[in-house]
């Protein structure tokens, strides 16, 4: 089973990204469970979303305390003191940022994929909606789900022109993510 935790702010599409990932996994024959935890349901408030996938049905209904992968949609959330708490060894981070890491932020973090999803979203969609771009980066860096499945899952939520623009974001995230590895 893999456990992925998404960190964002209300309005950035963290919950939707977690759900799209779940749909991608189901398309590839996996079992999934995905849910958000909000404090106050308002724009700007920190949101955490959890997605689990496995080959067999998922029973646990708890939040994720030992993620295998973190997806951080708002770079400001990097300063959360508990962000990396419980990260599994060989942990992966997918981050929306314009700057790559100069040093390893946590000893369990072995792989980081950084992409300026905000800029890509603004260029392609015209708004700061970084979530679909980050899903593309996720597919590229983890290899846990295919690009086609991710794109199909995006198609469940958008159509027409908006869909085309978001699909470009996914592809650009997939192709432009910069990967850093640590031992």
């Amino acid at each position, binding site marked *: 089973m893999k456990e992925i935790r998404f960190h964002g*702010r209300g309005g950035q599409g963290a919950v939707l990204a977690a759900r799209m990932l779940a749909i991608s996994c189901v398309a590839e024959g996996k079992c999934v469970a995905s849910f958000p935890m909000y404090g106050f349901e*308002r724009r*700007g*408030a*920190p949101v955490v979303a959890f997605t689990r996938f496995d080959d067999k049905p998922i029973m646990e209904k708890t939040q994720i305390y030992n993620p295998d992968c973190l997806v951080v949609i*708002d*770079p*400001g959330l*990097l*300063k959360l003191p508990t962000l990396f708490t419980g990260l599994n060894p060989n942990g992966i981070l997918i981050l929306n*940022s314009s700057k790559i890491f100069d040093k390893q932020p946590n000893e369990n973090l072995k792989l980081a994929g950084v992409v300026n999803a905000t800029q890509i979203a603004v260029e392609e969609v015209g708004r700061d909606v970084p979530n679909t771009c980050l899903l593309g980066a996720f597919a590229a860096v983890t290899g846990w789900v295919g690009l086609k499945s991710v794109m199909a899952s995006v198609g469940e939520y958008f159509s027409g022109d908006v869909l085309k623009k978001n699909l470009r974001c996914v592809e650009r995230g997939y192709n432009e993510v910069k990967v850093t590895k640590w031992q």
Partner: protein
Amino acid sequence: MAVKKFSSKYEAAWSDADQLLLCLDTGTWRTKRPVVDKEKCTYCGLCAIYCPPQCMITRKDFFEPNLSFCKGCGICAKECPRAAIVMLPEGDFTS
């Protein structure tokens, strides 16, 4: 039974409002923060009057936001007659 230590002195969901009415760390809600250009500020006080949580602090000849509570709504920037306040992404202030 076993629970002996409590975090609140009250028996019910009451709170002490005589010191601070704001007991939430609303500063963490911000995605943009107001930055005041001290040169342009004429100390007119309109930003302070319009600020919904009343968190503009007076600094003798200019105002600046109390970042512990400022939620980044941007009303101060919109109302400033001198355009002395700009809203900048919070991410710019994080390393």
